[in-house]
């Protein structure tokens, strides 16, 4: 066995396995060495080195695994945020399509048996869109399935009632109006309640997961690891002549660098997510609300004429829906263009010029409304695409997770090498 440098003539050699060697006070301390040093002279340094090495390597490996895990969870979180946002957009699209179908069906009702074929086709495709989105939504989010099943039942009830209304209307029977009223109740009553629940649940899920990264944890881990490595370094420095062990320094450096990169990236992503939330995400949600309310208003305009009511109470549903549009839309000028035509419809009806009112409602009012609807739909698509694209560009997160794991491995390798250097000096 080689003697540690600085040791004097062979002291009693302690037993290799067993309790820590009792300090060998029997040996008289040579001059120039204090008690602590003397105690150390009696230590089994190789065993200490082994322990330090194992501890440090384990620390670095654990860092690699945990940090990689944290980053992986953040990557997953981003993916979930994107999924939830898509689901929210989907659910709102279902709501909008249903009200769009209602606006089309009620407007067509005014034309009786002479409803324009394109309007009928547009109604059919709106209902088809609802069903397609329902299926996609049920597949995407199992937690929504029960609510979506209930909604499917209501949609069925609605479209059946509309069909019966159309049949009655075609024969000129007032009973068609009763079916139309039933359809309206199915939509604005039960279906709306389920849709509200779905929108609320998915909004909550999206907003919670938007800030997917938690760079604080990475920093805490790194700090703990560096502290541990510093402790190991100190232990070595006390027993050997070098103040800083190269391997440990390299390991600490690697850990810090990797953490810095990951934490910076995480903060940046969180910042982007916050911007998105206030910007494109809010736009997508609010514009969808506006578009739904707009279609509700158009339906109320037709219903007013169908039910031949006049006076203020007849306008209240339209006014309520219009207020929601004004509060939420970004395309106010386009909405106002439709509102002007609507006011002419109301004027004609209140004056008793019913046929003029119907003419306006089925012609100019519809085309004015359609231009707003199309523009709003474009806004929603653009905003929601922006949000999901941004959230899904998260590939680098996964790379960072692997990087952190590698950093842990490299650090553990560096530490092992560094300590081995010291052990060689013992040999």
């Amino acid at each position, binding site marked *: 066995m080689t003697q540690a440098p600085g040791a004097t003539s062979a002291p009693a050699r302690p037993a290799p396995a067993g309790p820590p060697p009792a300090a060998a006070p029997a040996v008289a301390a040579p001059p120039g060495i204090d008690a602590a040093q003397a105690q150390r002279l009696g230590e089994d340094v190789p065993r200490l080195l082994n322990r330090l090495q194992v501890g440090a390597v384990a620390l670095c490996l654990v860092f690699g695994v945990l940090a990689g895990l944290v980053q992986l969870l953040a990557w997953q979180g981003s993916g979930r945020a994107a999924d939830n946002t898509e689901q929210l957009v989907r659910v709102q699209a279902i709501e909008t399509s249903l009200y769009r179908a209602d606006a089309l069906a009620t407007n067509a009702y005014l034309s009786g048996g002479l409803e324009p074929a394109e309007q009928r086709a547009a109604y059919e495709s709106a209902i088809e869109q609802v069903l397609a989105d329902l299926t996609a939504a049920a597949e995407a989010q199992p*937690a*929504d399935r029960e609510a979506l099943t209930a909604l499917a039942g209501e949609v069925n009830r609605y479209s059946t009632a509309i069909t019966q209304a159309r049949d009655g209307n075609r024969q000129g029977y007032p009973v068609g109006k009763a079916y139309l009223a039933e359809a309206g109740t199915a939509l604005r009553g039960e279906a709306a309640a389920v849709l509200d629940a779905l929108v609320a649940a998915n909004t909550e899920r999206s907003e919670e997961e938007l800030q997917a990264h938690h760079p604080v944890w990475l920093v805490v881990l790194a700090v703990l690891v560096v502290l541990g490595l510093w402790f190991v370094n100190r232990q070595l420095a006390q027993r050997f002549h070098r103040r800083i062990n190269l391997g440990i320094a390299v390991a600490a450096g690697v850990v810090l660098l990797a953490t810095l990169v990951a934490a910076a990236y995480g903060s940046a992503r969180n910042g982007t997510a916050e911007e998105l939330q206030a910007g494109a995400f809010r736009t997508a949600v609010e514009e969808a609300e506006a578009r739904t309310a707009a279609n509700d208003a158009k339906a109320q305009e037709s219903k007013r004429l169908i039910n031949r009511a006049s006076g203020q109470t007849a306008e209240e549903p339209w006014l309520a829906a219009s207020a929601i549009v004004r509060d939420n839309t970004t395309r106010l000028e386009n909405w106002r263009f439709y509102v002007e035509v609507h006011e002419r419809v109301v004027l004609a009806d209140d004056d008793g010029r019913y046929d003029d009112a119907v003419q306006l409602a089925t012609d100019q009012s519809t085309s004015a409304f359609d231009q707003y609807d199309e523009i709003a739909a474009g806004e929603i698509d653009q905003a929601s695409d922006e949000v999901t694209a941004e959230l899904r560009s998260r590939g680098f997160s996964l790379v960072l997770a692997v990087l952190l794991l590698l950093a842990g491995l490299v650090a553990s390798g560096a530490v092992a090498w560094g300590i081995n250097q010291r052990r060689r000096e013992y040999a």
Partner: protein
Amino acid sequence: MRTRPTRSRAVLAALALAGTLLAGCGYDATMVPTPETAAEEPSVPPPSTQDCGDPTRSYAPDGTVAQLRDGRGTREIERRNRLVVGISADSYLLGSRDPISGDFEGFDIDMVRAVARAIFPLTAAEAIDDRITYRVITAADRIPALESGRVDLVVRNFSITCDRWEQIAFSATYYESGQQVLVISDLADAVDGPEDLGGLRVCAPDGTTSLTNITDVAPEDAEIVTAANHTDCLVRLQNGEVEAITGDDTVLAGLSAQDPYAVVPAGQESFSREPYGIGVSADNPDLVRLVNAVLEQSRTDGTWEASYNQWLRPELGPATQPQPVYGRE
């Protein structure tokens, strides 16, 4: 070395922890709002408390139509050059809109036109609608519309009652209606009246006298279902939720005309009396006298009979115009 197994065990433990975390925390299921099964008590209108003798007593016309048309009753109408009338737009056969021509049509509408022709004799018969402003009103709005002066007349299957005489005036009875039942066609032979409704579900609109009356006369094991209005009752009949509907025979005729499988059993006796009158503001008895004169004229020149035969006879069978009762001052 002894340390290797310890190290690998630690790594394995960390990976296992990772696995459970990654297994995916599921989301709470979205809560489905439970529909409110509001089993409300159907609202029944309070029983009539007034007793004014015979409510069908109206103001006697003190002249012919020609003499009365330029009197005080029509001053405002002639100044306006239009007659404003409150009507229904979805009581089939009584007052509804022809979807093709866009005109109003029905038994009540014919009464409106008869009065308008009397007030504006120089207008050609085909153009008489130019002298009429039709205001579609709900049943609940009949009295307020007259009291506020928004309309000159209300012709909207308006039953004459003592209570209503407190607020407005009525013409003489222009049709003697009564409450009956309508059933699905394969029960038409078995059911002759409300007493045969045992074991069946019968519909009546909420808050109407139809509901009060059927509750009184229907057998114990008949189930009474309420709806928003009579057309809603037809919807329920068509959907198989009820087998019978009860209401005024004119309303039932309108429902029956819309659905060949909804039939008013022939020769049925009404189990309540609903005399229809034309509603006029209480401040205008002269207009009431004019309307009564018009009704008498339509008896003699056959207008009433022609109108009844066109609209109501196919569903309800033959009937005659009721005799007027006068004597109110």
